[in-house]
Each structure stands twice: as C-alpha cells, then as structure tokens.
C-alpha cells in the first residue's frame, strides 16, 4: 500500500486539477508502452507489456476440447490472472487472490462478452474445428510481475499483443467419421493459423480523483481515486464492456461523458499499441 503524507496527497490532487500530473503528463496521456512478443517460447503466443513501472506478462495456450452443448459453434476462452508476490509483498501466499479474481472477472467482462458469448471482443466462432465436437480452448494466463497502477489496461494490452502473436496449429480432420463418433484429428506441427486480432478491444480506465478524471493512473494516483470506470472499446469505436470500481457514486451524465472521452482516447491507444505490436513482431523475426 502506498503511504502518502497530506502534502503529497494535495500535490497529486492539485496537479490533476491543473492538468499537469506529478510525472509531467497531462490528464489524458498514457505512459510510454513497451511491448515484447514471444516472451514465453513454450506458449502458443505470449507478450510482455510495460507501462512505466507496471509490468505484466500474458501467455496463450491452446488445447483441443469439446464445445459446450449450449454453444456448439463456439470455442472457449478462459482468462486467468495471477498476481506474483514480486510485484507487492502483500500478494504473498493467498494475499493476491482477491485482486487476481477481480482482474480476471473484469477482463472476462471486457473481452469475452456475456454468458452466451455474444458480443465478445474475441471471435469465438473462429475457434471451432468440427461443429459440436471439437474446438480450441484458449487459456489466457496473465502474470503481474510489477505493479504501478493501471493493471487492467496493461493486462488488456498484453492479451491483445499475446493473441496477435498466437499461432494455432492447423488441424486436419479425418474424413469419414460419421454420426456420433469423435472424429480423429491430426495436429500439424508446421502450419499455424494466425488469429484475427483487429477487433479485439483495448481497455481504457478512467480514474476519477476530485472533480477530474485521468487515464493510466500510477499507484500513488490510484490511492487518491474515488471511483474508476474501465471501458473496453474496439477499433470501430464500439463499447464492448464496462466496469465501475471504487466506492463513490457517479452522476449518470458524467459516466456518459467518460465514455465519450474513453472512446476518443482508445483511438490513439489502439494505433499506438498496433504499431508497438508490429514493431515487436518485426524485432522477434529478426532475432
């Protein structure tokens, strides 16, 4: 936990009010984002994202499974976040479980849509191999290595980067399997299918401190927040999910205002992230 003196609190709040934060940023400026793909070679896809001192790793593993009977034409995606005690001694033992759970649920809400899988940011129907019988199960595991605020945005960015780094092996289904039989499959070692990530949303968290709201809050700034709204927006500018955290109530008109600001900010963020991901992939290809 951050322990701030009264003077420091006033300094942070004053800075936000004057649109000049303690690290020199404006209210709606992100810290520089640094993406590194292929960080975990054993996974199907992985990425490390750094935003200032916040450092997260995301990895994607694909396994063949059976689609659920309610949605025979859709694959399954599970998002799981783990907070490493390296980030904060408080997370030792089971101490990080609560935050891990909160982040996992928020990410699922922002990226996977509702229970029916409708409106998901990730296209679940592209994961199907044989309808009703075989599909890919994607396990997205995230690890928080170092935390300095704004974990949700960083995790969202890491997942997007990891998915665009993911290669899913091509599967050849043996023809002739009929009726109720489980078809035989042959997983290719050489051919990989890329995942279409252009529609995966980014998450923009607006943290309200005092009368104003800021993006990409550091942990010092987060300690001053009264409420935060995380909005996931895709490239087309559609809102894919929304969560509000923090105790204080918000005026409905402010929420609408925040959404339109988030939409505006997300535009820049998506472009920035895409160019970072492309640069990281080019780097990886070279080495």
């Amino acid at each position, binding site marked *: 936990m951050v322990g701030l003196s009264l003077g420091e609190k006033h300094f942070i709040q004053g800075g936000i009010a004057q649109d000049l934060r303690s690290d020199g940023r404006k209210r709606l400026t992100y810290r520089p984002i640094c993406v590194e793909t292929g960080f975990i070679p054993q996974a199907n896809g992985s990425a490390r994202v750094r935003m200032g001192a916040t450092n997260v790793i995301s990895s994607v593993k694909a396994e063949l499974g059976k689609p659920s009977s309610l949605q025979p034409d859709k694959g399954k995606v599970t998002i799981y976040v783990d907070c490493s005690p390296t980030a904060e001694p408080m997370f030792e033992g089971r101490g990080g479980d609560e935050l891990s759970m909160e982040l996992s649920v928020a990410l699922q809400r922002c990226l996977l849509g509702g229970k029916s899988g409708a409106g998901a940011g990730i296209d679940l129907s592209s994961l199907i191999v044989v309808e009703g019988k075989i599909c890919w199960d994607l396990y997205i595991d995230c*690890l928080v*290595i170092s935390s300095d605020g704004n974990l949700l945005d960083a995790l969202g960015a890491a997942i997007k980067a990891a998915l665009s780094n993911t290669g899913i092996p091509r599967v050849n289904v043996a023809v002739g399997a009929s009726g109720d039989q489980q078809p035989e499959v042959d997983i290719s070692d050489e051919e990989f299918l890329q995942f279409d990530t252009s529609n995966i949303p980014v998450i923009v968290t607006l943290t309200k401190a005092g009368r104003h709201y800021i993006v990409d809050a550091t942990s010092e700034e987060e300690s001053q927040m009264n409420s935060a709204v995380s909005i996931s927006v895709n490239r087309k500018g559609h809102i894919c999910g929304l969560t509000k955290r923090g105790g204080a109530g918000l005026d409905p008109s402010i929420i609408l205002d925040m959404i339109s600001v988030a939409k505006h900010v997300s535009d820049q963020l998506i472009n920035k992230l895409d160019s970072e991901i492309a640069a990281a992939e080019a780097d990886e290809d070279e080495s």
Partner: protein
Amino acid sequence: MEYVSPEGLRLDGRRPMEMRQIRAEIGAVAKADGSAVFEMGNTKVIAAVYGPREVQNRSQQMNDKALVRCEYSMANFSTGDRMRKPKGDRRSTEISLVIRQTMEACILTHLMPRSQIDIFVQVLQADGGTRSACINAATLALADAGIPLRDLVTSCSSGYLNSTPLLDLNYVEDSAGGPDVTVGFLPKLDKVTLLQMDSKLPIDIFENVMQLAIEGCKAVANYIREILLENTKQLEYRRGL
C-alpha cells in the same frame, strides 16, 4: 534412451561438461528494493527482494538477527502443459525452504537485527534446474538490494547419465531418472552450502559429479560478478561520478 550420442553430444547439442547459455538482468521490478531476472537456457526466473524492513508479524521478530523469508511460485504457463493449481503445493514449499536456508547462510543477518528480508522468486519458464536458477536470481537480487552478504552464493546442478557426468541438466535429462546433484556454493570461501541428490551413485563417481557441479557454480559466479560490475558501472555513470 540415449542421452549422450557416440560423438559425445547431448540431446540439445551440448558437450557433457557444457552449461546452457546463461543470461542475467538486474532491476526488472522497479518497485522492489532489489530484483533480477536469471535465465539458464530455457529456464527463466525472476526474483525480487523487499527489505530489510520492519517485521510484519511481531511474534516472528528476532532481537539478534534479521528474519529471512522466501516464497517460490510457478506461473501457470511455466511448464509445457498448463498447470492448474500452482500455489502452496509441497514441492514449492520445499523449494522455498531450500532457497531460504541457502540465502540465510550467506546474508550477514546479525547486522540487521529486528528487521525482515523478503525474497520472492517467480518461475516464468521451467526447463530443469529451476532450483539453481532461483538461487542465482535471488543472489543477484540481494546484491542489487545492497544487502550485506558473506559471499555471492551460486548454484548449479549436474547429473550422471549413460556413464557420463553431465553439467546443468535440462528437463528431459532431469526426468530421465538418473541422479541429479544440486550444489550451492560460496566461491570466495570455497564452501558448499547446499547439496541435494536423489537416486543412488557410487561414491567415487559422486565425487566427480559434485566436482563438476562446483565448477559450474564457479562459472556462474564469474558471470554474476561481471553482471554486477557492469551494473555498478552504469550506476556510477548515471550519477556522473
């Protein structure tokens, strides 16, 4: 199965006495007092040190020396197959204990009474020798945190397969069922602080295998010293000295 080919090459193309490529980086976790990433081939671990600081649990406070604590955790994605419940199983508790004892032996705890030092190691990728990699990462992180140490403790493993002593086993060789000797070593004082072996080995061969692991530790120690020197130079440069 043949682990050493007639030409004298191992499965991953190394010679029996060859280590995997090692790489280290200091300062991966900005908010910790000291941190380091350590890679041995595909094994990749990250260590963070918090402290010396106030003891969190008063009943554990010691009036004559510092309390050293350690937690080892493995990421879900660290192994080939995805792990489901990684926290607090017997294996990680045992490794936490081993690392704690090894590090405690080289920290000058009597200089920091009534305080606590936390060492957290996180395995990002496991490919054999995680124990050794964790100890090496923890040493670097402790040095980065500026904690007084008796010596830089380093660790390396060795084994014995196909009548050949092998240095620095990877996962395939580790799970072959042969003996696996993990040594923790203080290079300056020339002392062994950690020694673990499973399965059986004739005593004269054991001597060779242990000696091989000690040579490995010395090589790691040289590398760690280089990294620390490089880091200190950079700090010096940034300060404008």
